[in-house]
Each structure stands twice: as C-alpha cells, then as structure tokens.
C-alpha cells in the first residue's frame, strides 16, 4: 500500500475572540456550544420539576424557596393551577427539544461526527454555525415566553388543539405563539444540522473508511438525521396551521370553524415517534462506543446492530398512532399499529442483546463512563419492556394518560439523555477539553443518580397502575388517588435527591476545565479516529488526513501487540486480512 500524505487545506484558523469562540464555524466549538447550552437548559428543565413535584406531593401548600416568583404564577410560594400547566408544558418542551437534542445530536454529534470519520470539519461549516445560532435564538424565544403577559404555553408539550389553538381556552396568548415560533426555529436548526450530518458522513469520510467501518455512533447519528429530516415536515406544516389558527382566525383545527382537531394529533405523532428515536439512537451510539473500549472486546455483531437500527428506523414511521389509541381514531386502526409497535421491540432486543453479548468474555473496567453505560443498559431495559404495556392497545385503554406512561417514557428518555449522555460526556470530555474529569466525583455522581433515578420513577409505575392521571394539579381532588399520596411524597423526596445528585457533576464538569489532569491523546486506549489526534484536536482536526485500515472495534485481537488496534494503524504484514 503506497503511502500518501494528504494536506488539509481547511480555512485558516480564526484568531479573533468573536470568530473563534462565538461565531465559530469549527464543529468542535459548535459542539461544545450546543453541549453547554443543552446542559444549561437541563438545569432549567430540572428546576421546573422541583415545583411540579412539590405541588403533587403536598398540593396547594407554599413551596419552599419560591416566594420570589411573582403573581399570577405563584401566590407567595403557592402555585397557580395555570402556572402548573405551563411548567408541565415547558418541562416537556425543554427536555425533549432543548436538552435531549442539543446534548446528543448538537453536542456529541457535532463534535464527534467529523472527528470519527477523519474529516477536518463538517461539509458545510457555515450552515453548522447558522444551525447553532438558530437554536440559540429558539432557546431565547422559548425563555422569553415566561416573561410575556399571560405566561408561557400551557397546552402540554404535545399542544393538542383546540386547547392550543384558541387562546380563550388557556388564557395564554403571546406565550403560546412564542412556543410555536421557538419550536419552528428549533426544527429549522436541527434540519440544517441533519442535512449537514448526512452530507458530511456520506462525503467526507477518510480514505479507507467504508460504511461498514464507520463507528456505530456515526451510524446512529446518520439514522437519526434521516429520521428527523423525513418526519419533521408534517409537524412544520402543522405548526404553521396552528399559528394561523391562533393569529388570523383560520379553521384548520377548530371544529367551530370547520376544522378537525384529530389532524394535529396525527401530524404531531407522525413526527413525534421518529423523534423519540432521533434522541434515542445517538444515546445508544455513545453506549456502543464505550462498551467495547471498557470491555476490551469487539462490539458483538456490528452489522447486525446496523441492520437492526435501520429496521427500527423504518418501523418508527409506522407506529405513531399508538399514542392515539383512545384519542378517537378508528378503533380498527389500533390493531395494525399495536402490532407494529410491539414488533419494534425485536430490533431493539437484538441491539440490547448485542450490547450484553459484548460483555461476555471481556475484561471490564468500571470507569465512570462504563458505570453509566451499565446504568443505561438496566434502566433502558425497564423503559423498553414497559413500552410493551403501552403498545398493547387493550392495556393502553387503562394506562393511557396515566403516570404509567410518564414513568415509561422517563425510563426511555432519561437513560438515553442522561445515563448515555453522561457516559458520553465523561468519555469524550478529555477529547473536548483536553483534561480528564475527576473519577471519584464521577462515580459518586453515578451512584447517586442511579439510585435516586430509580427511586423517582419506579414508584411512578405504581401511581400509573393506580390510575393516577398525568398533568393533574391536585391529585387529592380524587378519592381514588388519595391512598397514593404517600407514594407521591416519596417520589418528590427522591426527585429532590435526584436534582441534588447532579451537583457533583456540575462541580466536576466546571472544575475539571481548570483542575483536571491533563489528558493524553488516547487516554482510554481506544481505536476510533478521534483518539488518533491530540486532545483537544487542533483546528482542522488532523495534521494529515488519516487513512483507515479496519473497522473501529478491533480490541484484544490475537497476535496484535496491544489490546487495541487503532483504525489508522497499518499492520506490518497481511494488511489485507484486517477485518471488514
């Protein structure tokens, strides 16, 4: 194989502060910007939980530390029912669109995708910068809705009309319009991002990096990008219609003007279900990168995982009505949708089993990223199996709209965004910032989070089975929910513990920027391309374009000098025999 040196002729490095750290086109800066903004929004989303949970445990009592919140949101620490609905709405919106997506796609995706494929940057760097600043604007618009008269949106994160379409039903005027605008901007931002990811992964791969040598994280980001691009259209159309209904008196969703409210639900969930996988797959991707490194084994069944992902992605477009079994759809439609929904457990079961099989015969080191990965496996398993209950139309008659559903999707999204996300952050932090995070604080963070998380959400299944509805301001209104009050109080205490458990992480994340141990180029002894450059990588990422000789998971290969074999390292002899 002839040696080819390749010069990178990326744009010259910007040196002014504004171009280097603020309006940067460097994917690494943009990735860190997304990550930081996402984590900040997570703090806000977490803060809403405190108020919501306190209200549920001790309804209509003053909530400590909130007496500063002005009327009409709170009356000297006592929560207004309308503000409760607004907090519930904003919690959902923030956590799905302004935390999960920026951390997993915007942050990890942006930072890792070009590095993992050996590119100097995204295919369209300026589009990438626009994507972030559009997202920033979206966040600002969303937050500004807290300060307009009438307060923020109060129709739930799903925004079902007519509640969302006619301001009179909620009393929220401008805030709801800002909510729609913020979502539209967010969609536009991730549309730009998705286009960029796909173009980059198809066009910018290093020599030798065929599709089946891509790290699985890249596959997951790719699939997520396709799912997002193909699903977001109808909801953009729906958002336009909703905004027109609210502003110029059109009649898309309001029955009294000849509209149909069910149409929104279909458009929303046609997007909503693939969106779940848009968030989920990058999280799974992080876990799939971390498992082989800390088990020192190749990932089990690489191609099988890729095919399962694609099948799950395709299936995700034909399951959306399972969110609507009792919403007034034709009941005969429920059967096919129930079948496709439950069938989607098969590709995910294959992926999960492949992850577990990777552990078999490994040499597992429980550093913080691996602990979070184990946490992800176990908690996500609960999220997966409880999905079967919701997917069965018959059972859904009872548990739809109850805390069973709330517990289920928190068991899927929290492990994805936080267990897998934290695993990714602990794992790639050295590459992002050039320093290691503190191991002791990391382990403390894991155990506190893992225990508290389960104490919050396992009892929620009990609430759901007891029939406890979602989005209820005061559950004590109902006699049949009164016996569940102690459960609610327990959950609230655990939720406060879960929030406090994040303090070690915040200290660790910020403190390690200055006091962390300097990271080596490849501190985890990993194979993928991002570890073959310096920590953090220079502008342009690689001094010369790396040449790839094999797949990303060649660990503990017999005959190799070390227990890892970087993708860029040529074998002295028989290079052709190197794995696919």
């Amino acid at each position, binding site marked *: 194989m002839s040696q080819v040196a390749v010069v990178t002729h990326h744009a010259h490095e910007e040196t002014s502060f504004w171009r280097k750290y603020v309006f940067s086109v460097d994917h690494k800066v943009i990735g860190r910007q997304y990550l930081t903004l996402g984590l900040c929004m997570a703090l806000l989303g977490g803060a809403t939980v405190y108020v919501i949970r306190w209200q549920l445990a001790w309804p209509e009592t003053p909530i400590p530390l909130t007496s500063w919140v002005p009327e009409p949101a709170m009356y000297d620490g006592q929560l207004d029912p309308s503000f409760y609905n607004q907090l519930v709405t904003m919690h959902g919106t923030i956590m799905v669109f302004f935390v999960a997506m920026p951390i997993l796609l915007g942050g990890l995706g942006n930072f890792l995708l070009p590095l993992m494929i050996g590119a100097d940057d995204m295919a369209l760097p300026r589009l990438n910068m626009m994507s972030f600043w559009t997202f920033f604007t979206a966040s600002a618009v969303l937050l500004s809705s807290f300060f307009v008269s009438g307060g923020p949106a109060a129709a739930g994160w799903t925004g079902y009309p007519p509640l969302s379409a006619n301001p009179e039903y909620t009393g929220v005027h401008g805030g709801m319009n800002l909510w729609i605008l913020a979502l539209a901007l967010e969609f536009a931002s991730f549309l730009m991002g998705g286009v960029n990811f796909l173009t980059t992964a*198809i066009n910018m791969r290093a020599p030798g990096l065929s599709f089946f040598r891509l790290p699985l994280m890249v596959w997951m980001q790719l699939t997520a990008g396709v799912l997002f691009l*193909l699903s977001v*259209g*109808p909801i953009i159309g729906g958002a336009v219609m909703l905004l027109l209904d609210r502003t110029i008196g059109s009649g898309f969703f309001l029955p009294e003007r000849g509209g*149909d409210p*069910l*149409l929104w639900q*279909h458009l929303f969930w*046609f997007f909503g279900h693939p969106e779940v996988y848009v968030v989920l797959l990058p999280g799974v991707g992080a876990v799939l990168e971390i498992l082989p490194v800390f088990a020192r084994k190749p990932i089990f069944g690489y191609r099988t995982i890729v095919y399962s992902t694609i099948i799950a992605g395709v299936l995700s*477009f*034909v399951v959306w*009505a399972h969110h609507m079994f009792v919403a*007034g*759809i*034709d009941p*005969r*439609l429920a059967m096919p949708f129930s079948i496709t929904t439950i069938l989607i457990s098969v590709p995910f079961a294959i992926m999960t089993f492949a992850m577990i099989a990777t552990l078999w015969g490994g040499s597992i080191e429980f550093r913080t990223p691996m602990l979070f990965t184990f946490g992800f496996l176990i908690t996500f398993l609960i999220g997966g199996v409880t999905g079967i209950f919701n997917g069965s139309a018959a059972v859904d008659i009872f548990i739809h709209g109850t805390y069973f559903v709330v517990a289920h999707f928190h068991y899927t999204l929290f492990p994805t965004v936080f267990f897998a996300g934290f695993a990714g952050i602990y794992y790639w932090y050295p590459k992002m910032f050039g320093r290691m995070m503190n191991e002791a604080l990391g382990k403390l963070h894991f155990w506190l989070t893992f225990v508290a998380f389960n104490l919050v959400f396992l009892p929620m299944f009990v609430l759901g089975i007891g029939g406890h509805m979602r989005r209820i301001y005061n559950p004590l209104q109902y006699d049949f929910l009164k016996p569940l009050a102690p459960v609610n109080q327990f959950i609230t205490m655990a939720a406060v513990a879960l929030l406090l458990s994040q303090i070690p992480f915040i200290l660790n994340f910020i403190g390690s920027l200055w006091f962390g141990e300097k990271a080596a180029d490849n501190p985890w002894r990993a194979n993928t391309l991002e570890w073959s450059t310096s920590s953090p990588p220079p502008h342009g990422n690689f001094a010369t374009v790396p040449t790839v000789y094999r797949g990303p998971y060649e660990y503990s290969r017999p005959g190799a000098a070390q227990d890892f074999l970087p993708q860029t390292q040529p074998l002295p002899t028989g290079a052709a025999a190197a794995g696919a």
Partner: protein
Amino acid sequence: MSDESRFPSYVAIWSWLVALLVAALFCAYVPFGKALAIFLIFTLAVIKAFLVARHYMHLRTEGLLIYAIAGVPVLLLLGLTLALVPDIIFRR
C-alpha cells in the same frame, strides 16, 4: 453528466409543460364528469412534476442515492395519507 444531448432540450420540455397546462384547463372546463376530470387533471399534474424533476432537476443523470432521497418521502406521504383516510374522511 456526460451525454446530455440524448435528452430533449429544455425548451422542448417547456413546450410540453405548457401543452399539459392547457390540457389540464381543457379537462377542467369540458364536462367530463367530476371523477374523470379530477383523475385526468391529477394525472397531468403528476406528468408535469415528473418532467420538471427529471429534466430540470436533472434526475435523468442522477444515481440511486438521489432517487432514494427524493422517492422515500413520497412513499412516506402516501402511507401517511392512506393511514389518515379512516380518521379524517370516514370520521365518526
């Protein structure tokens, strides 16, 4: 992008598009009966869209990937539309 000359010229395509537009207008004004007229009009629209996509958007010289990127959304939309028929049209 090699042999563009084996395709009809852009002006020829434009003439076809205008002719099909006239044909569609003709279908709308001649009393064919509602169902037939709508069928004809939309067939003509599909042909027009196909002509624009194939010739002006150069699908004629593109590979499988571009066809897939353009075609999969169309299939998804058909699926979405069909799935909504029982709810939106035959609503209770």
